[in-house]
């Protein structure tokens, strides 16, 4: 069973031939491809790590910018709101003042109209009184003298009995 002979050396020779053949024709290309792939994966991982770090940095930067922009926007909105309040308040004040003026003018106009009406009514009352007195007395009174007399009488009535008709 154990018979060592020259086969042993042939086997060593066979193996060396096989190894040299495979080294040249087979293992070279496959080891090269595997090494290239390993290098590529390593580079991709490094590149991905670098990209991730860049992305994180950019995100941080954007977040800072976004926060700044938010703050600025808030400031602008606050300022606009404040300005709008101020303008609204000043417009309101102006409007109120204008209204007050208009009210004053209206009140003055009413007073003028009232005075005019009172004066007109007084004239008509005098004329009416003279007409009534003429009917009662049965003769025509002197227009100018009577008018003056009646007017004085009414004036005295105004002040003593009826009060001042002027508003």
């Amino acid at each position: 069973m154990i018979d060592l002979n020259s086969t042993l050396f042939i086997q060593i020779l066979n193996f060396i031939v096989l190894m040299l053949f495979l080294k040249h024709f087979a293992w070279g290309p496959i080891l090269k491809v595997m090494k290239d792939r390993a290098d590529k994966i390593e580079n991709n991982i490094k590149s991905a790590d670098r990209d991730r770090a860049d992305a994180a940095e950019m995100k941080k930067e954007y977040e800072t910018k976004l926060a700044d922009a938010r703050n600025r926007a808030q400031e602008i909105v606050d300022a606009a709101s404040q300005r709008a309040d101020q303008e609204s308040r000043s417009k309101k004040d102006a409007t109120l003042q204008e209204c007050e003026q208009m009210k004053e003018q209206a009140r003055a106009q009413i007073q003028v109209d009232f005075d005019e009406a009172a004066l007109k009514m007084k004239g008509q009352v005098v004329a009416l009184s003279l007409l009534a007195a003429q009917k009662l007395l049965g003769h025509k009174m002197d227009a100018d003298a009577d008018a003056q007399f009646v007017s004085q009488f009414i004036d005295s009535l105004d002040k003593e009995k009826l009060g001042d008709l002027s508003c």
Partner: protein
Amino acid sequence: MDKIGVREVIEIGGFMFNEHTIIMTWITMIFTVIVAKLATRNVKEIPDGFFQSAVEMIVDLVQDKIKSIIGPEGLYLTHYFLTLFLYLMIANWQGLTPIGESPTNDLNTTLGMGFMTSIAVHFVAFRNKGISHLHHFIEPFAPFIIVNVIEELARPCTLAFRLFGNILAGEVLIIIMLALVPWYANWIPSTIWVCFSIFVGIIQAFIFTTLSITYMAPSVKGHE
């Protein structure tokens, strides 16, 4: 192989050769080359063929062992260990074919591989360390040269006998089991045993390669 362990011997120029062993070795070499060529015929960066994937798996296995035992500096020896593993694995499987026999069931083959490894170990050691490599024979002190020489001789022998014993035993057991079981039930033990032998063939090739890498480590890294 007509009888277990009995081989036909031819004589050429006064040298004796085991005819079957050499023929089966050549067939093994052809198969190894075919597998290697199929794997590298159309090498792609992303493998999509069975052979490229399978061989890449073996390359990874061998390179992982080299890196863990020797270190990355030993990777230049990948060619040697890769060829050794693939050659031994295919050689071990040869005996499972109906008309074949494993070249590794002949001690000439396994001892040849063992000596080949020893030669490679010392060749690498001399190339890396020069003549100072011989110093390790007298470590830790001079009388230990006897123990160290025995160890150096024992290494290829243990490699060879382990592989030879396992493969020969596997083939012997197939024959015995076939003889023990009636003809109509032959397929049951033979199928189970062939499956087991496929596994043993891989394991034995792996053990031989791993131990060779272990023996090679001091030659590349230096004796510790």
